[in-house]
């Protein structure tokens, strides 16, 4: 379980996060929703210790993040994190060199699934294919938790469908996934849990099926209620 406990952060005088708390369970897809600039990416960065927080605590399976944790949790930012001059093959080799949890078999499976060629240079890929390589670099790690920042933004519809398909497959099964988005439509059926963020605080945290079952509301219905208040 990833526990985010009362974290705060300022950018200069602006308070971006004002005591954000939520949990994300293993085996569930948790979606952080909020308009742009609400601090979703900052939360992801904070979980990965890529940016300092003013106060609060983040625990992963009850432990604070350390170098070993990076074999257990990985983050797929909204832009690819490999050098543009590398080929896809070189990028995979880099990952294999540094991560014990790298799963070459799964990497190959994903290459086939996304129809990517190892000899292609990252800088020459289309936006959609770049996003797929970026995703591949995270998905091929045998980690328990996956963080994805806006995986559906700025890419063509077919790439989007292909990426959505990943969420219905064994590639994310049994793992804990946190994804951020400002556009819920494509993935409403895919997610288990929603964390609604607004102005640096969590406005509501709920399981999608529970809300449908108990209140007959869609995720968008709940959002409308929460944001209109």
């Amino acid at each position, binding site marked *: 379980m990833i526990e985010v406990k009362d974290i705060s952060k300022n950018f200069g005088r602006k308070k971006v996060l004002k005591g954000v708390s939520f949990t994300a369970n293993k085996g569930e897809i948790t979606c952080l929703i909020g308009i742009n600039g609400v601090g979703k990416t900052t939360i992801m960065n904070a979980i990965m*210790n890529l940016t300092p927080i003013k106060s609060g605590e983040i625990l992963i399976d009850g432990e604070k993040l350390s170098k070993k944790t990076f074999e257990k949790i990985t983050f797929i930012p909204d832009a690819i994190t490999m050098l543009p001059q590398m080929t896809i093959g070189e990028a995979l080799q880099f990952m294999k060199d540094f991560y014990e949890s790298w799963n070459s078999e799964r990497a190959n499976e994903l290459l086939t699934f996304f129809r990517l060629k190892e000899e292609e240079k990252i800088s020459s890929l289309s936006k959609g294919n770049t996003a797929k390589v970026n995703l591949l670099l995270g998905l091929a790690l045998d980690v328990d938790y996956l963080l994805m920042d806006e995986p559906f933004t700025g890419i063509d519809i077919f790439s989007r469908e292909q990426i959505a398909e990943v969420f219905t497959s064994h590639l994310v099964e049994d793992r804990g996934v946190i994804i951020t988005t400002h556009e819920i439509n494509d993935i409403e059926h895919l997610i288990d849990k929603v964390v609604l963020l607004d102005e640096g605080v969590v406005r509501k945290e709920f399981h999608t099926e529970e809300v449908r079952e108990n209140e007959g509301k869609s995720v968008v219905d709940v959002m409308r209620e929460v944001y209109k208040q």
Partner: protein
Amino acid sequence: MKNYVKLVDFELKRFIKIYFVLIGMTIVLQIVGVILESRQYLDKATEAMYEYSVPLMEFVGQNGKFGLHRVLETGYFMIPIGLSVAALIFYCFFIWYRDWFGKNTFVYRLLMLPTARLNVLLAKASAIFLMVLGLVGIQLILLPIESTILQWIVPLDLRIDMSVSELVGQFGYGYLGLIIPNSFIQFLINYGIGFMHVFILFTAILFERSFRLRGIVYGVIYYIAAQVLFLFPIMIEVFFETGYLYPIEIFILEIILGLLVIGLSLWISNYLLNRKVTV
């Protein structure tokens, strides 16, 4: 440790193209320089002796004998060496900022590697260190080769043959002596001080990367403070002329302070990388 070695290898590969260009430029310019300067001297000598019938002894008396030390003072040597030094100093900054400002923010990957983040810094420093040593090594190999080329062109009567140690030491061609000191101890001192500066600079860069605008101020303050700390005993001697310490004592004190500054820089860098740095 294994990850550190892999990271060094990776950092070296990232700069290798520009590095080879530097090496190529150094080799070509220096050898071309030796050939052209030698020819020029020889032409002058031939002209003097055959057209104006100046005796050899008189020509040598007026113009001096030719040797590699004369080429050292020309742009053929100074430009490639100067450019290499400038490139590596520039790369001390670039090696960090390229990870943040490149097309793809590679720093995410580096900071998420399952290894101590200090290894990333140590790998960057080591890569620069190895590249500096590589260039120095190439210069050391080049000097005797250039000597030989010179000997092919300029006859014995008109030249002075000098060994590498003579070239770098006793004739006092300042800049070369700095790069290739004449004694091993001096070598350690020069490069030790050099690397202390690299570590101080890296710390200052990490201050900037952690606190941005405010960080620049912190970085500059840290840079100055580290210099003051390191030079403290010498400054006291210079300003107050106390003569309280023997040179050897100052020397030992400097070594201790140098190591202290390196240790302090690494400690602060480690703290910044783990607690304060932001992507």
